[in-house]
């Protein structure tokens, strides 16, 4: 397998704060990678660096062998990197269909508005939003807005999809539906990075996990292995707990 995305020693400073500090890892083609870490660990900053929203202040981001560290967000989007936002970002006054069509038209290579609408409809069906197509996006519930985020991203024909807490704020039924969708997307050959707080979600879905803490990469590997790593337990539950339970969290 070859790396689709490779981070080489990337850093991002905001004034005196090292939000992400010399992080290196890579994502293989077809993989589902879990990106976890406590609040403020730098997960979202890392995604913002990859998508060009906040370009790295040090190091390089390579996508499919090409350096994308200096590209602007829309250029990166057109290369096939899509993301969903932790705080959903629909175009509220546009219809659900138009929202998804935007992804197809501007990044997914649709030839015109009609083709974009057709592609959008496919992805709305896939995400279970087809009967909402003509409603304004503002009328959707949170769970459905999250699915709309997914539909928008899929309409971009992504090669790498980054899901920033798509499951936060959802109830257990909604979560298992969302997980089903993510698995289906992965089956289509899309490489996925899942950013999550919910351990259960990460464990059940990821092939591999990367752990950030205070902007630094503290562990990576198989999910089970990583969760029994001492530094990971320290990061989440404190040093005292780690010393008392050397074999990991119950």
């Amino acid at each position: 397998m070859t790396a689709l995305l490779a981070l080489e020693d990337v850093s991002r400073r905001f004034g005196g704060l090292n939000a992400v500090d010399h992080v290196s890892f890579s994502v293989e083609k077809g993989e589902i990678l879990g990106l976890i870490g406590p609040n403020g660990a730098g997960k979202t900053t890392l995604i913002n660096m990859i998508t060009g929203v906040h370009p790295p202040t040090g190091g390089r981001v390579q996508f499919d062998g090409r350096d994308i560290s200096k590209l602007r967000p829309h250029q990166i989007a057109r290369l096939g990197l899509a993301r969903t936002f932790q705080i959903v970002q629909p175009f509220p006054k546009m219809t659900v269909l138009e929202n998804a069509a935007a992804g197809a038209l501007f990044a997914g290579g649709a030839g015109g508005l009609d083709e974009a609408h057709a592609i959008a409809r496919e992805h709305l069906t896939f995400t279970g939003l087809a009967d909402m197509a003509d409603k304004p996006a503002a009328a959707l519930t949170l769970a459905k807005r999250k699915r709309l985020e997914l539909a928008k991203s899929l309409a971009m024909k992504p090669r790498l999809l980054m899901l920033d807490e798509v499951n936060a704020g959802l109830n257990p039924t909604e979560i298992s539906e969302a997980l089903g969708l993510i698995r289906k997307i992965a089956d289509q050959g899309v490489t996925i990075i899942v950013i999550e707080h919910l351990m259960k979600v990460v464990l059940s879905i990821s092939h591999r996990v990367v752990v950030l803490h205070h902007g630094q990469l503290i562990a990576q590997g198989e999910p089970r292995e990583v969760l029994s790593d001492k530094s990971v337990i320290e990061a989440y539950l404190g040093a005292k707990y780690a010393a008392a339970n050397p074999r990991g969290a119950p």
Partner: protein
Amino acid sequence: MKNWITLIVVAAMLATLPLVGNNYLLRLASILCMYAVLAQSWNFIGGLAGYPSFATAAFFGLGAYTSAILQNQGLPMMLAWGTAGLTTLLFAAALGGAILHLRGHYFAIASLIVAEMLREIVNTTPNLTGGGMGLNLPIMRISVEAQARYFFYAMLSLAFLCTATAIVVYRSKLGFGLRCIQQNEDAASILGVNAYSYKTAAFSLSAVFVGIAGAIYASWVNYIEPPDVFDILLAVKPLVMVLLGGLGTIFGPAIGALILLMFEEFVWRNFLTVHAAALGLIIVVLVLFLPNGLLSLLRERFARLRGAR
């Protein structure tokens, strides 16, 4: 298709006006078309992209002066109008590059000072522009009635062209991208919209027809001076008209232009001294009670009527 039919029918009806109207009516209709151009142009950047521009006065004055100076150098009138439009377009593209990264109030303020800057440049270069003395334009050697007709048709054609451009743009990829930017610029660029060039395109579109309108206006009134063509009201009125008619709609600007013009005529005739205060009052009332314009009110009524049936 419905939009095209509406546009052609309205324009054709207006075009018959010289057959029935007197010169006063013709002058009003010319101003109406000019206002429609200013409002429709502002709608590209303010309504579609959501960037509240106050640069309309700058574009208008720049077009007027460019054309006036060129005509005094001996360029034929039509050619001078075209060149004025092109100059304004390029100016807006360059200016957009400098200030379109600003958002909201910051952009509004930056766009507001452009007219002041140009006005100062004109004031300090009397050899080229006549400075504070103003500038005379060549007089057409045709009758007063013929002139009135000529400039009415010029303004009407420009308003037609501007609205036709709006119809095309609204249905295009550009229009779609601009609506995305208006609603959430960050999300739009993550979806692959090149926000920077789209905004610059909208800003340039909001300039080119205004520049030509300024050029036609200069020829029409034969004499221009900085306080006239760089008037701040030229930047405020388009916004009022669009808010009156309906933000981001195709015929809202023209409807707003008609309402504002009727209002102005009424207020000027009856309350000459307070017309500026009256204008201020409409803005406040509009923003507070009718943020989506009169067109939206009509549309809601219409929808309710249909629903009741």
